[in-house]
């Protein structure tokens, strides 16, 4: 006899059609599992303590990641420097860990420059990139001895003026180059073009200036470069130009900065192979780059020139996989098209990379039930607020937690305070302790810079 008191727990009914076409066999596997902890700390407990949504960094993952890249390169080439690309994630705790691991700073604005200086980075270890550096910023950077990467002729002229005003002779500078590697699309809007002679012309101008001297070459081929051969080509072209420019202008190049661009294990939208299959390892990038250096620089020291220092400005590949975003299910919906939808408390306002990545999405507990194709919406009242267009998820209840990964690159810098306040960022330390490294925003934070003229105060009495 069936006992009324022991009713079965209710699990929402699900029906899915078997489809012969278009099923993403990788997507299903990738998203089938759950994740209930980050670096050993329970996700449910983190949210209980620090709220939802919540960004969670892992110190251990971050250190391991930067060390692996460092090891891959230092075991293959004698002079290597990693410069932390601030814009990728400039939360102080992140930058500080990377500086502890020996990284210099790569900045692209006066704001980032000041941020690095305030954290204690000596100017001589700051690589100053970017297409806009004001006269004030250049004056500060030159007088403090920063490593300036010149982007265009107008900047070169300004820099010359600034150095002359400061009575500085032979201030060492780097020029940013752009060229076609035959692999990635050329980011031709930055730096001096190599093929049309602009770069050589810039070098001649520098050679003619008493205040400046050319000591470095820089290039950034683009971001999320999944073919290491692009770097082989890049390094070959840069070495070739180095030889030409040294011969033509009697300078000595001591730095080759190859920018960033290594891919992380994230899934680019429109790419159907899983990231485990298409993302090269640090060692594969290092092999491609250091192999090209070995060939290109074979006779350099015999010819009386120093081996140039290799500078990496890796951003994404250092930090992406060291951070998760936890979000809560706010509502379940069925769209007029029949597709299942969920509304989450985190949208593109804080998960900016949802515009180009298909993050790994996992429930924070094992969930029974058949996974169903689901669209994930954020909390904004905007049509663009889609954090995932299509992901296979089992039935979830409101209040259920989902983790998004990898989210360490470009979210904590490109997020916006729009409609919602930005949530806290916590870091699981190596000893298991959890530190808040950026508290949740408050209304006061947002209104602090504002001024309401007294006569505009509305009167509702």
């Amino acid at each position: 006899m069936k006992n009324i008191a022991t009713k079965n727990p209710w699990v929402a009914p699900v029906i899915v059609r078997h489809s012969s076409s278009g099923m993403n066999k990788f997507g299903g596997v990738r998203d089938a599992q759950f994740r209930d902890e980050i670096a050993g700390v329970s996700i449910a407990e983190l949210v209980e303590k620090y709220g939802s949504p919540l960004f969670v960094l892992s110190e251990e993952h971050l250190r391991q990641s930067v060390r692996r890249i460092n090891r891959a390169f230092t075991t293959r080439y004698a002079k290597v420097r990693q410069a932390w690309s601030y814009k990728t994630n400039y939360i102080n705790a992140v930058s500080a860990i990377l500086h502890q691991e020996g990284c210099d700073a790569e900045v692209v604005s006066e704001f980032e420059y000041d941020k690095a200086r305030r954290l204690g980075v000596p100017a001589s270890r700051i690589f100053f990139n970017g297409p806009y550096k004001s006269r004030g910023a250049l004056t500060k950077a030159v007088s403090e001895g920063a490593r300036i990467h010149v982007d265009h002729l107008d900047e070169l002229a300004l820099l010359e003026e600034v150095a002359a005003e400061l009575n500085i002779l032979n201030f060492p500078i780097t020029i940013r180059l752009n060229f076609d590697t035959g692999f990635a699309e050329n980011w031709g809007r930055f730096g001096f073009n190599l093929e049309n002679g602009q770069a050589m012309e810039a070098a001649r101008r520098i050679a003619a200036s008493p205040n400046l001297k050319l000591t470095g070459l820089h290039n950034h081929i683009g971001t999320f470069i999944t073919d290491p051969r692009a770097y082989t080509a890049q390094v070959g072209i840069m070495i070739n130009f180095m030889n030409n420019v040294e011969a033509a202008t009697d300078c000595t190049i001591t730095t080759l900065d190859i920018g960033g661009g290594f891919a992380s294990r994230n899934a680019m939208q429109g790419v159907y192979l899983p990231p485990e299959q298409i993302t090269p390892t640090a060692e594969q990038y290092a092999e491609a780059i250091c192999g090209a250096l070995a060939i290109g620089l074979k006779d350099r020291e015999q010819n009386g020139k120093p081996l140039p220092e290799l500078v990496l400005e890796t951003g994404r590949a250092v930090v992406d996989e060291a951070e998760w975003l936890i979000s809560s299910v706010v509502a379940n919906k069925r769209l007029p098209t029949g597709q299942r939808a969920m509304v989450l408390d985190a949208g593109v306002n804080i998960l900016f990379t949802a515009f180009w990545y298909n993050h790994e999405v996992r429930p924070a507990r094992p969930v029974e039930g058949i996974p169903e194709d689901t669209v994930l919406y954020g909390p904004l009242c905007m049509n663009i607020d889609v954090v995932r267009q299509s992901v296979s998820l089992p039935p979830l209840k409101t209040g259920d937690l989902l983790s998004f990964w990898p989210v360490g690159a470009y979210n904590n810098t490109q997020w916006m305070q729009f409609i919602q306040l930005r949530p806290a960022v916590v870091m699981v330390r190596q000893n298991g302790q959890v530190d808040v490294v950026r508290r949740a925003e408050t209304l006061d934070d947002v209104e602090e810079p504002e001024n309401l003229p007294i006569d505009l105060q509305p009167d509702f009495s």
Partner: protein
Amino acid sequence: MKNILLATKRLALSESGFVFDPVSGQSFSVNDTGLVILRLAQHQDDIEQLTEQLLEQFDASSVEIKRDVQDFIHRLQGFLK
């Protein structure tokens, strides 16, 4: 709503949750709850009574059950039309 419950009569249901629709030739998977609902629906074309029957078996509020069943039926409607 009634029509769609009637249409479930033609479905072949298996214990594992495999569902076959001989009219369209399509097949589906349902979870345990889905299977219970389809089984009930094959003998019951009144949604209120179907909800009552589910309430007897499952530990949930009638609001929750009604909402989920309606969602499920809508989905079914799209598949069986």
